[in-house]
């Protein structure tokens, strides 16, 4: 299986450590990973702002980069969801469809494809709050949703429970939105900040030392609030926690 690593633009630029952790994690599980060097962005910022029509260049570049890969794996639920729902090409429709059906968010790839049941080296003796990202949860169905009458499950939680010493804190509102929302965070600045603050409060009230999740964009939002509050609480992408102790 030829696995292409998709590192979203903002992770590439602002959070290279998340990319490194993702790569190491996959390699430690015996996956051969390639990183196509010319990749850029999934096109979501344009599409969510009402300009899906302007993301054709982005889509084309994505398809060009990942054409040789059987599957694509990325450490970001919202970017993966965007690709799954909207990756499009007039010139190469079959290729676009193939990639749409074979792109995975990291946690889902680990639990559903690799069927990871143990992470012997992972050790993280801290109280951790899991921020469940909306796009990962409701879009990619990475975990059950509080609105639905359905059995409970959570792929990221399953993985975190494999980490030695990790203490997952319960939250009052386990699937409340963090308020990032792409360009929403700028165009509805006051509202977005308040949502971020409320989300952070829930974690702090329950004694989290670290906030984690599968979407760095949500975590960037929460980090922005924590830093402004000069809080000692850190954010870490789930890949960083799953590789800790390695």
């Amino acid at each position, binding site marked *: 299986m030829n696995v292409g690593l998709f*590192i979203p*633009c903002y*992770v*590439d*630029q602002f*959070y*290279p450590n*998340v*990319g*490194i952790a993702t790569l190491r994690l996959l390699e430690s599980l015996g996956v051969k990973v390639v*990183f196509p*060097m010319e990749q*850029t962005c999934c096109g979501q*910022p*344009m*599409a*969510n*702002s*009402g*300009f*899906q*029509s*302007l993301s*054709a*260049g*982005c889509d*084309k*570049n994505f398809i060009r980069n990942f054409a040789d890969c059987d599957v694509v794996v990325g450490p970001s639920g919202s970017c993966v969801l965007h690709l799954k729902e909207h990756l499009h090409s007039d010139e190469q429709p079959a290729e676009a469809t193939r990639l749409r059906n074979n792109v995975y968010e990291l946690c889902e790839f680990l639990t559903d494809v690799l069927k990871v049941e143990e992470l012997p080296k992972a050790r993280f003796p801290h109280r951790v709050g899991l921020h469940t990202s*909306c*796009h990962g949860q*409701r879009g990619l169905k990475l975990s059950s*949703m*509080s*609105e*639905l*009458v*359905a059995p409970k499950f959570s792929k990221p939680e399953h993985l975190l429970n494999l980490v030695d010493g990790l203490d997952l804190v319960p939250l009052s509102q386990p*699937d409340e*939105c963090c*308020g*990032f*929302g792409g*360009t*929403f965070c*700028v*165009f*509805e*600045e*006051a*509202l*977005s*900040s*308040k*949502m*971020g603050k409320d989300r952070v409060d829930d974690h702090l009230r329950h004694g989290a030392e670290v906030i984690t999740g599968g979407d760095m964009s949500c975590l*960037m*939002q929460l980090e*922005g*609030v924590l830093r*402004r509050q000069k809080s000692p609480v850190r954010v870490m992408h789930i890949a960083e926690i799953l590789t800790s102790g390695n």
Partner: protein
Amino acid sequence: MDTASPKHAKAAEAFLRDEENTDWHNETLWFVRSKRDRAAQSLPEWEQLREQASQIKAHTLSKLDDYLIQLEENARQNGIIVHWAANGDEHNQIVLDIMRKHKATKIVKSKSMLTEECHLNPFLIKEGIEVIDTDLGERIVQLRNEPPSHIVLPAIHLKKKHIGDLFHIHLGTEAGATDPQYLTEAARIHLRQKFLLADVAITGVNFAIAETGGFVVCTNEGNADLGAHLAKVHIACMGIEKVIPQAEHLGVFLRLLARSATGQAVTTYSSHFRKPAPGQEMHLVLVDNGRTRQLASPDFRNSLKCIRCGACMNTCPVYRRSGGHSYHTAVAGPIGSILAPNIDMKEYADLPFASTLCGSCTNVCPVKIDIHQQLYKWRQVLGEAGAVESTKKVGMTGMDVLFSHPWLYRFAGRAGRWFMQKFPSLANKPSLNPWAIHRDMPKPPEQSFRDWYAQQNQKKNG
């Protein structure tokens, strides 16, 4: 086309200035959402019920014309006078004509979002008619000269203290009173006089049944019944999407409606009206006002399934923190943000963007409207129509160029990180970067992932 101004964002910012009040609003609505969850969880067949409701509605919409004609015929046979209105103005005129025919000057009205949508109250008041909203929450906002801020809980944005002050001025209650029992008692006495003197009662319609020609009105206060039974004339106003095929379908919707709206097992009063009582007159006004346009659009047709339970508002993290008035439309919240641009694209172009597309609304919706996906589609429609702020468009065109050219992206990334490292105070300056008003920017790393990866490869290869 003129572009939208971010009205919602500005109004939300104003609402958020009183943080304590925002928290209270947020928590109160979340409490209602939690009650809804408990009520839903108590029915193991909840998801099947939603699916059934959604399918009944889909079927009805696919033959809406047939069912409406059936409804009209059966209602006429029952002795109900049926009217059709193409838009809000026609609707208002029909109501006025009925008033004039009876030389009537006083109306009691129970809750109806349709009449809000048509702006019936100001129209009638201008014609010299007294209109009294009889739902307690509606009466409160009416006395304040405000529209309702929520379709089920019209005065949810107000606290007991506001109501005490308001009643002191208008109903002569003691100054500073906040006891709900005392205040409701005062409202009750005040409203009773209005009920007794009204010539005409207006109600909304929750469900109209094609098969029987009857309709159902759901209230928790019984005010629709009191009004309709006391007045000589009863006018029921409904959007054309409120029809359902058969009486047997009612059970599905009545079970879903109250649980979704307030977490009750069933609404206190679900009153069935079939024909006028002896000596009374009953009218049914069927209103289009943009609904057929929506029906014709495959992307947005689904939104006509809405039964106006308000669950999508209670769950919406944006609505909870910005208040209903920030949506500047009769129906606020996620569903309102889909309905409003259909009525006036320019006026309401900001609303589909007043969402993070978190999808919670779609999950609570008892008739399974794909609300957040429709909001996404509206954004595309508005983007293409040129109804989005031009700065956004310029920004997005720039992004397209950037992301389509990997070399440019790499260069810009490096330049950006370099800039942020050298001039952190500029990157964190609120006047240049709205993000930084309440949040810090991430610390830019020395190296991008890509640069690190290239370096690793180089090391490995030699």
